[in-house]
């Protein structure tokens, strides 16, 4: 006869209530782990998907994700000439924040090396890859832009032709794919108003100078130089993606590239390590600490719940002792209840997470390995938590609690 189950059945309402509470707590622990996994997954997703063997970036930078990297676009052609290189693509990536239909729209603008790269490698949920050199885009679902939506970015209007899911940048903003030239146009777009302001500012500056006062004709010149405003630099890209020929010697290619001034070369793995070491590491430690704290708090809470449940049962435990029950029977009753609570709470946490986590703004990735380790942790903390109650139960003097 299982005493633990019978007692739980007798106090079913309270048991369900506390188990739901513990379940929610465990769901938080689970979510913390999931957020961390999601962070890593999203951070390295693009690097993985792009499928480059080598990343050529601006000299002595750790770009293009960890910091800004600028390279002349024509470097692409020079890299392509290196023996062993099958393909070299320009890679343009930057985050912009614009407004669309009255709400802020933050997205990572990703340039594809049209026409070699039309985004066929991008996993599409709906729609199609890019089909023309301009004015088309692929957007991530998280940006909430439906297929066929037209968006004005800078001077041009772009149409959403494809949708992806779960493709976001390191800070969680949805990715958009354009042809590289469109991406550059969006990045370096200077609106007319900005130009007018720039002109007015220049005129004011000249007016304020002695030179401007002495030669008023200069003012007209400052205002007239609309095309001479040196705001637009030569086209620049963030990185060059290198695909090696099958069987090519990566070290040899790197040796050649190393002799070039002003560039640095990373492998895909190095690029991932840069991302994880630099950007994700602090978040990882932060979440890890929170998880540790939550696990401790869960232990304490389960311990207190089990302890109060034990206090409520003190008469029954005293009675069991009076009819001669062994300590293993009494300890087993309490331990089993703690384990039931932990295990049911864990199941509930998993189940609730299934419905809740997908609604979180960033990916919450529940890995099987994490589930198993959390399950083991739950068993350990439930066991630890029951010790306090068991200790209390075993020290009860039956004749002092019970009228006999």
């Amino acid at each position, binding site marked *: 006869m299982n005493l633990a189950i019978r007692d739980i059945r*007798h106090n079913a309402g309270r048991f369900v209530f506390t188990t739901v509470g513990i379940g929610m707590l465990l769901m938080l622990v689970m979510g913390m782990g999931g957020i961390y996994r999601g962070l890593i997954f999203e951070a390295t997703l693009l690097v993985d998907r792009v499928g480059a063997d080598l990343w050529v970036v601006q000299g002595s930078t750790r770009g293009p994700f960890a910091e800004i990297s600028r390279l002349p676009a024509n470097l692409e052609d020079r890299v392509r000439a290196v023996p062993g290189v099958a393909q070299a693509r320009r890679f343009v990536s930057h985050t912009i924040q614009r407004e669309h239909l009255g709400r802020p729209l933050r997205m990572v603008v990703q340039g594809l090396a049209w026409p070699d790269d039309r985004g066929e490698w991008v996993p599409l949920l709906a729609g199609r890859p890019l089909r023309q050199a301009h004015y088309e885009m692929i957007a991530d679902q998280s940006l909430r832009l439906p297929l066929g939506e037209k968006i004005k970015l800078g001077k041009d209007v772009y149409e959403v032709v494809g949708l992806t899911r779960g493709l976001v940048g390191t800070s969680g903003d949805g990715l958009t794919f354009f042809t590289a030239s469109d991406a550059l146009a969006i990045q370096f777009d200077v609106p007319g108003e900005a130009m007018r302001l720039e002109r007015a500012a220049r005129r004011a500056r000249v007016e304020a100078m002695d030179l401007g006062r002495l030669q008023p004709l200069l003012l007209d010149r400052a205002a007239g130089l609309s095309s001479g405003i040196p705001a637009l630099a030569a086209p620049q890209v963030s990185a060059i993606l290198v695909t090696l020929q099958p069987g090519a010697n990566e070290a040899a290619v790197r040796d050649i590239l190393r002799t070039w001034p002003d560039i640095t070369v990373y492998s895909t793995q190095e690029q991932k390590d840069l991302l994880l070491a630099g950007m994700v590491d602090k978040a990882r430690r932060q979440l890890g600490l929170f998880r540790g704290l939550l696990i401790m708090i869960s232990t304490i809470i389960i311990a207190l719940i089990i302890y109060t449940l034990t206090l409520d049962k003190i008469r029954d435990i005293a009675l069991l002792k009076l009819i001669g029950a062994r300590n293993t029977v009494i300890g087993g009753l309490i331990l089993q209840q703690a384990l039931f609570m932990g295990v049911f709470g864990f199941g509930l946490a998993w189940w609730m997470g299934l419905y809740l986590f997908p609604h979180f703004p960033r990916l919450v990735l529940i890995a099987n390995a994490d589930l198993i380790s959390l399950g083991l942790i739950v068993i350990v903390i439930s066991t630890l938590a029951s010790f306090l109650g068991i200790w209390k139960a075993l020290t009860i003097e039956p004749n002092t609690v019970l009228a006999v």
Partner: protein
Amino acid sequence: MSGPTELPPAIDVSNLRKVYGSGHTEIVAIRDATLQINRGEVVGLFGPSGSGKSTLLTAMALINPPTSGHIVIGGQPVMDGPRAMVDARSFRRQNIGFVFQKPNLIPFLTALENVQVALEINDTPAKKARERALELLEYLSVHPRADNLPVALSGGEQQRVAVARALANNPSLILADEPTASLDGALGRQVMELFTKVAHERHAGVLVVTHDARTLDVFDRILDVEDGRIQIRANHKTQ
């Protein structure tokens, strides 16, 4: 020839003394009690309220350690003053059946389970324990309420379940504190006859606290407690 009289006494209590509290709140509940109950014998314990009957019974059941004195059960010394000489709980489980003055059933177990648990903690397999528990409940006429929780039982029904629980493991010593207090005459009589039957058939020693003069005739002997002292009443059957 192995008659019950050749076995060691079911219990042998000598010079037992129990003092509650200390200083000006000190209460001497038992003063120098000495008594013996043989196997197969049913003994009645009478005395006014507060005279120390429950204290004596709980001391004999190793529930409430005495201040001084000795207790020997079935030939084995079990208490030397307040010091237990055996593991009280396992000894109680195997040798003593106790009926509390209050029914003291476990509230989350049904009537049947309350009896069954006593058997199971003494290593009876679940199925056998269940059968035996049901048998006892039937004998005490509470089997129609077997699957009810104690709250749903009347005082008398609870008391009969408690009696069944005390008898479950065939103890050699049965100590019952007013087991018939909330039973009517016929049922009370039935419980007392059950005790007699167990005493005679299984050679158990039985000590029953009661106020019920109608059951006098079932006792082999009667003890009177007055202010913590025990006196043997002579010839109660001829009175």
